[in-house]
């Protein structure tokens, strides 16, 4: 450590209507793990895209020095050659190709006829993967791996390029606890071999655990200098990020549990690839007005599938009964669920939540399109007014209502997804990982909002993989493991160990 290998100087990057980066300066040393933090839309991803050639010179202003030499990348290839690798916020791999092909895309060893030398390719891939201590077969299709393993493949790909600076943009948001541990081990090993790391995350505990130093971005500018992690508290970092102290990360309100609203009985979802297995196996539960019901469990425990079944995603393929306010519902599609007053904030915003190349108005009003139109024509004025109201309320950072949502930062996109379901005014709001990728300030805003909704009589159900969030916000917690409900805990009985015990499949007497 100590030797400076990267300096970014006075970086400015403008998009139509926004200055995403405003004179950003920072330096990175050999073998350093630098955490880059900041609110949604602060410019973290944009800064890293400038560094890695996604935004080529001269679409930005300012200078980048690698080993004291000025570099101006015209594309990502050049940045890769210079030893800069990036694991993007959204994975960038090809699921239908093999692991090895993904690692050596465009660089496969070829024979005289231009065919791929498969054995050599697999051998090389094995070599790179073994550097990560990863037990992954380079021959299988990438799409057959878990998200965590896919990410390892991305890292392997970066390593195969002799990367000296490796950027991680929110790498853990889709990983299980075990996978996160694995990832951290790998990152620490990389540091030991003198790779420098820039690590972006909204999970401050991770940063505390992993990073050597922190740089905070707010509204496109660095706040203060780079600080050593040992010389700063989390509260100070948060204060730099949002410009104020956040007193209460989990603003819990003691509600009175009222009448039963949503009740589901014996929900089962078959596994389409394995008729003997069930993704959701005979789950029953009830939710009440005046409480937040949390659903906890490890990734793959069937939580998403459970709420999808309630929402009608599987149509006739799922079994079970659903009651709302004592009335039996016949839900065969999401449209039925919405009509009955059930809303689902889906987990994967890019694939399932947003029309990326449509504007905010169209996205936000889509599920409640009926209320914005007479028999024939859309009421565009009403649409804008309501959208505007929710943009304000959720504090969505956007230059206008007319930009495509793909231009928003990850966290602001998430808020759009939440907003579109709030507009439906449903009786039951199910949120699947609602705070994934959003910053601490915005998280508390979402929590406050959930509280407000409960207060106004909405039944709120939240799936979350983050234990502090589940424990902090829920009044009651259902734990799932391998498709089955393994526990139902009152807030008072729910501590970390108990939840983890049930989440790992330890069935208790209930």
């Amino acid at each position, binding site marked *: 450590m100590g030797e400076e290998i990267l300096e970014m100087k006075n970086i400015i990057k403008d998009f139509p209507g926004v200055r995403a980066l405003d004179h950003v300066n920072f330096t990175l040393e050999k073998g350093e793990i630098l955490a880059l933090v900041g609110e949604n839309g602060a410019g973290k991803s944009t800064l890293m895209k400038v560094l890695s050639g996604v935004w080529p010179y001269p679409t930005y202003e300012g200078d980048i020095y690698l080993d004291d030499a000025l570099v101006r990348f015209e594309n990502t290839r050049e940045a890769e050659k210079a030893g800069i690798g990036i694991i993007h916020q959204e994975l960038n791999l090809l699921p239908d190709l093999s692991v090895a092909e993904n690692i050596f895309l465009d660089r496969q060893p070829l024979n005289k006829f231009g065919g791929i030398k498969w054995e050599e390719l697999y051998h090389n891939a094995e070599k790179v993967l073994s550097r990560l201590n990863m037990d992954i077969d380079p021959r299988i299709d990438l799409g057959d791996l878990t998200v965590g393993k896919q990410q390892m493949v991305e890292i392997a790909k970066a390593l195969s390029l002799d990367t000296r600076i490796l950027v991680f943009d929110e790498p853990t948001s889709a990983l299980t606890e075990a996978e996160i541990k694995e990832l951290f081990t790998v990152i620490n090993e990389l540091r030991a071999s003198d790779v420098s790391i820039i690590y972006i995350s909204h999970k401050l505990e991770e940063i505390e655990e992993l990073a050597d130093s922190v740089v905070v971005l707010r509204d496109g500018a660095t706040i203060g200098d780079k600080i050593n992690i040992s010389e700063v508290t989390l509260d100070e970092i948060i204060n730099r990020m949002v410009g104020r102290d956040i007193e209460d990360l989990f603003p819990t309100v003691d509600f009175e549990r009222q009448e039963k609203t949503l009740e589901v009985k014996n929900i089962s979802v078959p596994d389409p690839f394995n008729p003997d297995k069930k993704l959701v196996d005979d789950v029953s539960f009830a939710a009440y007005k005046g409480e937040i019901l949390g659903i906890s469990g490890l990734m793959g425990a069937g939580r998403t599938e459970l709420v999808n079944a309630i*929402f009608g*995603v599987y149509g006739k393929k799922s079994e079970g009964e659903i009651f709302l306010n004592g009335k039996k519902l016949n839900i065969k*599609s*999401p*449209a039925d*669920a*919405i*009509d009955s007053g059930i809303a*689902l904030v*889906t987990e994967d915003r890019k*694939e*399932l*939540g*947003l*029309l*990326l*190349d*449509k504007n905010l108005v*169209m996205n936000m009003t*889509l*599920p409640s*399109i*009926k209320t914005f*139109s007479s028999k*024939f*024509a*859309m009421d565009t004025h009403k649409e*804008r007014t309501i959208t*505007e109201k929710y943009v304000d309320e959720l504090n969505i950072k956007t*230059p*206008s*209502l*007319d930009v495509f949502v793909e231009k928003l930062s990850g966290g602001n996109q998430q808020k759009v997804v939440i907003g*579109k379901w709030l507009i439906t005014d449903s009786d039951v709001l199910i949120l699947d990982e609602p705070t994934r990728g959003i910053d601490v300030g915005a998280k508390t805003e979402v929590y406050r909002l959930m509280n407000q909704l409960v207060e106004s009589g909405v039944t709120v159900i939240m799936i979350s993989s983050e234990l502090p969030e589940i424990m902090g916000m829920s009044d009651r917690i259902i734990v799932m493991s391998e498709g089955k409900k393994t526990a139902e805990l009152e807030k008072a009985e729910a501590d970390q160990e108990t939840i983890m015990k049930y989440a790992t499949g330890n069935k208790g007497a209930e």
Partner: protein
Amino acid sequence: MKKFIKNNGTFIALIFLIIILSFLSPSFLSSRNLTNLVRQVTINGIIAVGMTMVILLAGIDLSVGSTVGLSAVVVTLLMQSGIGMWLAILITLVGVGGVLGFFNGFMSAKFDIHPFIITLGVMTIARGLSLVLTQGVSVPVTNRTFAEIGSGYIPKIPSLIILVIALVLGLIAVFRTSMEIKNGDKVRNKAKLTGGIILTVAGFLAGFLIFIGYQGIPIPVAIFAVIVMIGIYTLRKTRFGRKLYAIGGNEKVAWLSGINILRSKTMVFVITGVLSAASGILLASRLNGASPNLGDGFELDAIASVIIGGTSFMGGVGTITGTVIGAIIIGVINNGMSLLGINSFYQMIVKGFIIILAVMIDVLNRRDTA
């Protein structure tokens, strides 16, 4: 200026094409030729309006040409068998266009089969039916009034009045739609406004010179204009139109937001089927009969019009105004090449290249904005 060109690129291309052709062939600009041209555009344009909606859903309909043929045959045979003209037309629109469209839409949406396959099948089935019904030979129209629909004109004075009303309504619409709200302020989109005004006035002048100079507005053109206006309104203003853009944008997201994909898709194919049938009826009327091969290859012109008009084959992006310009471009190219005496075999080659070019432009544009 750059924005202006980008927003109105196809229109500018059309103007260039017209200028070049009027130099190359003096008879191109004659009212008679232009009236003919517009009538040809009409036949393809009516289908292309439906095709726009299909491609907006990232789908395709290859059966439109055969639907044209079968409809022409059916309406002719129905009248031969003594059924009244209007009833025959109605039966054809519903029984041929509606049924084939329903089959296309329902099968592809319900069983999640790409419409390419289903409509390819229907294309062959419908063509086969035409051949069976006619025994492979042309059938003549016996009803006199029927011929009027395809070849008649609205007299000059009413035509003029209609054109003026269209001009005024068009300008009002341009003014209203060029207003955009930015950061809470109402701002006028200058590029859109200028483009819109030029387009509307040019349309009026063209209409005036072509129709008033000859015999008035051809009835098929009037029908086409009405269909276009309804189409534009549907896509821009209605809930149904909004749903189509949403489904085209991301079908899964739209479905999870409560949109009934099956119903919307089926509806779009039914509309396209009915419009193709209408086109076939007009063609039978103009030709005073139907041959079983009528409409062969029409799907290509319709698809080309839509793509040239800026609708993305990836779905979710596109307008009917664009398609109309695209249809006129195709019409001008067909007509121009015939005037210049270019063999129709070569015409096919040229059109093929134009389709590829239009798709390239779409792909490059996408990459630009990504």
